């Protein structure tokens, strides 16, 4: 690639550095790994730049590359405790559990006050525990406000799958928060059914 083409690539790509980095940070959890992932994305992107057909969709194209690299990287990592995803997760309701448990009996805003008791890093850890198939689309919605059609294109998935992953991803997140609340003792009287 000649210098002019390289400059054109950099002019198009570098303005998206901040967004790409924020996504990479939330998908990997650490600044160093996030930077690695972003660098890898730029290298892959410049390699494929001559084949890019629609420069108007440049940002979506970069996120497509980054998402794939992120998914591959996470799949290659052995997580300490892999999150179990079963069919019944779709019916999980943090709202109902908070209501039934009533951990803050004097609160006028029970659900909001319950959420306020988590530390920021606990919420981010709960999110990071999501399997990549759910985490990636959810982060693209949370951070980039992407529409389902764009997600389907970026992730090569049918719309119905995008929809169910975004539902299930949030349900897994609700369950992770509930588990965190139990471990933190925010939910004091809750007992496992087997106890």
């Amino acid at each position, binding site marked *: *690639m000649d210098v002019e083409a*390289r400059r054109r*690539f*950099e002019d198009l790509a*570098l303005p998206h*550095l*901040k967004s790409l*980095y*924020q996504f990479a*940070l*939330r998908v990997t959890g650490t*600044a160093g790994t996030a*930077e690695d992932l*972003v*660098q890898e994305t*730029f*290298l892959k992107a*410049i*390699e494929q730049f001559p084949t890019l057909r629609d420069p108007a969709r440049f940002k979506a194209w970069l996120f497509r590359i980054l998402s794939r690299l992120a998914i591959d990287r996470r799949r290659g990592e052995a997580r300490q405790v892999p999150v179990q995803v079963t069919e019944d997760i*779709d*019916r999980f*309701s*943090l*709202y109902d559990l908070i209501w039934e448990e009533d951990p803050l009996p004097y609160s006028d805003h029970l*659900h*909001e006050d319950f*959420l306020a008791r988590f530390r*920021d890093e606990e*919420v*981010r850890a709960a*999110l990071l525990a999501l399997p990549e198939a759910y985490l990636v689309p959810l982060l693209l*919605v*949370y*951070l980039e406000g992407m*529409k*389902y059609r764009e997600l389907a294109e970026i992730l090569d998935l049918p719309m119905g799958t995008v*929809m169910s992953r*975004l*539902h299930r991803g*949030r349900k897994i*997140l*609700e369950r992770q928060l509930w588990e965190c609340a139990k471990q933190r003792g925010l939910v004091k009287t809750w007992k496992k059914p087997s106890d």
Partner: protein
Amino acid sequence: MEKAERLSCSDAVRQFFAYLDGALAGDPLEALEEHLEACLDCCQKLDFSRTLDAYVKGRLKEEPLPEGIEERIRRRIEDKEGTER
């Protein structure tokens, strides 16, 4: 009210996030909105889903870029292009 009657609470809940993400349109949107008009419990659950989404998003505040990252990327691109020429 026909569509609202057809949509059960569990079906309604399954559509909440698509609704919040602005991905519902046409009949499914109409059916959900009609259900919500008639079901206070689902309205409260939807409110919680909206609150939770905003709450989680609020925990993902923008972090500063690592110092020198842009320069390192430029250098890697230059190196890559240099070795491939």
